[in-house]
């Protein structure tokens, strides 16, 4: 019986030969190896050089040339999706990943790319499902682990996030500064300031140019009641980003808490020089005036804060304090 089928063998060999022939873009019976490598390499070079429009055009034509949709390459879809993401055309990126996942539902790089996009667009439940599925396929996939850990952080599940980061850093102790900073943030969110300080200090050894990382370190130090160190870190952050009013505001408030009312006032005034209508700066001035015994100034400043916006949290706090000052008689009766 085996011998009877013998003539079929050369025929099969011929079919495989034709399939493998790269000159046929779609191959005989549509089963040829996908696209030509040069076209893909050119698109990837365009992407690497930041020519995302060109990458999109080349990848779209590269993908569409292959008529048998099941033979379209996952990596090409992924690069196309990434190119759309770089161009901020998130709807097209999402469309690309969704189409690709229909043909390659178990492709882990595609799953993590799509999950990353969902995460970016705040569709965190979907992102979680995809990351979890990717980890079922590849339990040690670093992109999926780091993505899922960050996803849990974003939904507020810090203990779960930290547990996944623990695993991620065991597998990849030299992960990026951003990953370690996020890890530090999970400790900070759990008020584990010691661990947060440890990790963010490590981040700053590799990446000392980010005011955000210095701010994180400052928060960890402040949590440990190392106010002097926290203020030094804030100063470093301010050196890197002198006009960031949030850094100035935090500094002014910490100085106030540390009873350094004059320095706090100076910092709040600096905020006001940058943003004359800044409500929080005006509020901090009022707090300092009160502590320095200038009650009527404090009242005027609080009234000014409320005038800027009565509906904001700062405005509501100012209103409460002003009401209480107005009902409490001061020493000199004013």
């Amino acid at each position, binding site marked *: 019986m085996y011998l009877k089928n013998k003539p079929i063998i050369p025929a099969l060999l011929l079919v495989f030969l034709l399939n493998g022939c790269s000159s046929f873009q779609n191959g005989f019976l549509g089963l040829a190896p996908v696209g030509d490598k040069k076209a893909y390499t050119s698109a990837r070079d365009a992407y690497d050089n930041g020519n995302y429009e060109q990458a999109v055009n080349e990848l779209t034509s590269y993908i569409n040339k292959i008529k048998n949709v099941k033979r379209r390459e996952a990596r090409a879809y992924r690069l196309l999706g990434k190119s759309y993401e770089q161009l901020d055309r998130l709807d097209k990126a999402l469309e690309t990943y969704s189409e690709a996942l229909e043909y390659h539902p178990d492709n882990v790089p595609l799953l993590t790319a799509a999950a990353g996009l969902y995460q970016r667009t705040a569709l965190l439940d979907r992102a979680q499902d995809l990351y979890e599925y990717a980890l079922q396929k590849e339990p040690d996939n670093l992109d999926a682990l780091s993505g899922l850990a960050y996803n849990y952080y974003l939904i507020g599940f810090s203990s779960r996030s930290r547990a996944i980061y623990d695993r991620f850093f065991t597998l990849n102790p030299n992960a990026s500064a951003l990953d370690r900073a996020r890890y530090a943030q999970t400790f900070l969110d759990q008020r584990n300031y010691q661990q947060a300080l440890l990790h963010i200090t490590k981040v700053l050894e590799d990446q000392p140019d980010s005011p955000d990382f210095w701010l*994180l370190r400052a928060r960890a130090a402040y949590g440990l009641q190392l106010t002097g160190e926290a203020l030094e870190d804030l100063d470093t952050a301010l050196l890197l980003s002198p006009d960031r009013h*949030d850094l100035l505001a935090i500094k002014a408030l910490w100085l106030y808490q540390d009873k350094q009312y004059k320095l706090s006032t100076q910092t709040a005034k600096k905020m006001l020089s940058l943003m004359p209508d800044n409500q*929080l700066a005006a509020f901090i001035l009022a707090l300092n005036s009160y502590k320095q015994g200038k009650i009527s100034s404090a009242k005027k400043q609080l009234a000014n804060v409320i005038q800027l916006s009565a509906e904001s949290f700062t405005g509501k706090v100012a209103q409460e304090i002003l009401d209480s000052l107005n009902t409490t008689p001061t020493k000199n009766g004013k």
Partner: protein
Amino acid sequence: MVKKRLWTVLGTVLLFCQPLCALPVQTDDAVLREFLWDRFVSLPKEERPQIGLALSAGGVRGFAHVGVLEVFSNAGVPVDMVSGTSMGSVIGGLYAAGLPTEKLWEIGEHMTLKNITSDFNVIGLFRFLFAKKLPDSSNMLSFFHEQIGDKQIEELPIPFSCAAMDIKTGERVLFNSGPLAIAVRASMNLPGIFEPVQYRHRALVDGAVVDYLPVDTVKQMGADYIIASVTPLDFSSNTPQTVAAYLLRVGDVRATAMIEESSRKANFVLTNHVVDTGTLELDKLYKAGEVGVKEAHQHLEELQEDILLFSLPYVFKK
């Protein structure tokens, strides 16, 4: 030292010239909230308003309370007293006994019906058919003993209470002292599903029938500010298919009215919408917990602001 650090930073900036911005810039309100919150949580318990937590019933849905407690614990939201009903009493009781949220999540991952009853089997079925006896929930006692030992309610580090109902009289029975395991077992003892718990001449069933969301109880315990964690009923699921499911649904409809009334008396209500989850689908506990995390996290800033505005005189007294 500072100068040295500044030069290092400047040198690196020039070298890399690619500052990495990882965090969004905080709004002014967020900066102030965080500052005041730090002051608030550092106040001694007796120098600030007492915060009470009311945990609703809800079967497996009620595991969302664990997620709420996780977020509270991370943010430092103080819980000075807890009252819970049914699943709320299980979670509240374990938490008040000092069990950390990590341990509660573990319970959620491993809990099975065997932790509640050993009667969901053929013998139990025969017992039900011929002796007309419902399953017995006494396994809950050993489960509680395994987790926290033999604790009395009045010994717990966080004051706790829970409600059950006497099926003979229809009275609400409030447990604020005595053995914790018995109280919790009675509070979560679903009527029509489990045999009533016989305790001190009473036949006790799930307190959800009379006190689904124990806000009033928390008030009576001395709370100045009450947070309610609610797991409302999910009526989007299919029409009940069994007698037990019909009975539970009737209870659910009544519970909805109770939730509405009690919620009005709380200062802040967290509504955990756990969908597509049956009362006893224990394999969905963890997912229900995640819903609680999301709900609490989503409303955390709002809650913090509300507590701060409520406590402002205390915060600035410092």
